[in-house]
């Protein structure tokens, strides 16, 4: 039971990695990357969990009560927001790839070739 969170995180990462390796579409690839990233959230929050403890917000219960680790929560919080913005950046790159190469299949992308529009 106490190993389950770590293996859930490893499983999420493995599923995302398998998706990245077998991906045939850039948007699908970005989605898989987000799945990989969510594995880190499970791992970090699992590392900070204290059995029987409350949230690290001492508004209702006085300071000194047992609380879970706030450091990993802060890490996950900023990670989610920055991760969303980075996903947007990757999607913008995907739009540019579609526009210049007329494909979103990572297999079909070959570096250092003139784009189809300029070649025509």
């Amino acid at each position: 039971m106490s190993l389950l969170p770590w293996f859930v995180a490893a499983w999420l990462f493995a599923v995302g990695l398998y998706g990245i390796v077998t991906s045939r579409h850039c948007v699908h690839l970005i989605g898989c990357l987000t799945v990989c990233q969510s594995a880190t959230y499970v791992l970090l929050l699992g590392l900070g969990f204290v059995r029987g403890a409350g949230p690290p917000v001492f508004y209702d219960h006085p300071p000194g009560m047992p609380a879970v680790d706030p450091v990993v929560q802060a890490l996950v919080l900023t990670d989610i927001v920055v991760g969303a913005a980075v996903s947007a950046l990757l999607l913008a790159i995907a739009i540019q790839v579609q526009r210049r190469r007329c494909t979103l299949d990572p297999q079909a992308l070959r570096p250092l070739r003139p784009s189809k529009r300029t070649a025509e």
Partner: protein
Amino acid sequence: MTPRSRLVLLALAALILVPAIVRIALVLPGFGAPTALYGQTVNALLPDLRHVTNMVAAVNFDVRGIDTLGEEFMLLCAVTGATVLLRGARGERGNLRAGHISGRPVLARADATTLVCRIAASVTMLFGISVALHGMTTPGGGFQGGVIAASGLLLLYLGEGYAVWRALMRGPILALLEGGGALLFVLCAAGPLVAGRPALENVLPLGDLKDLYSGGLMVGVNAAVALAVAGGFGLLLLEFMEETRVPADDPAPEEAEP
């Protein structure tokens, strides 16, 4: 590289990685009984030292404030990069007409949709501002509040349609929010340096526990993050929505021949 050879490569990597992951999972401290001292030290000391009740915000904006400054600039870089990539291909010119697939009927929006969206958008934005303002006392803070407030903008789009939404959303204002928030964060970090103190040292009066103003300099940093996140996500929404407008009106600039 064929998909088959990629899978073979992945299997080879897994042969090495899986035993390592199993080994590490077995020696990690048990779930629910962590041995790390940093977080528990923060829980024990920070309510007295900084007069705040939300330890997550205290870690983000004070104890590890410099880390958050780095995160903030990662956000700024990602938003700037996405904006430059999309705008660079599209040109700066604004356009009030949305794209339309020929053959698909355009139905008038029901009044009920507009009404519900106006109410829901106002409530969502107010809730976002409230979550951001109460970041020091209750769960919340600039990151969450900024994202909630920016998501209210999408409800406006749903209720008002593209033309009105586009007239309401001003790109420069959103960019100013984004950059201004980052600048405010830098000023908060550099302010104590002017007085000869370490960067981000909490030089302001700390306020009272459970008060709206508590945590001193953290209030400024929290506001900076809220502005930057709301502006950044609003800008991303605007840029991606601009991609849907009529393409014929604004042809993409031709690439220079090599």
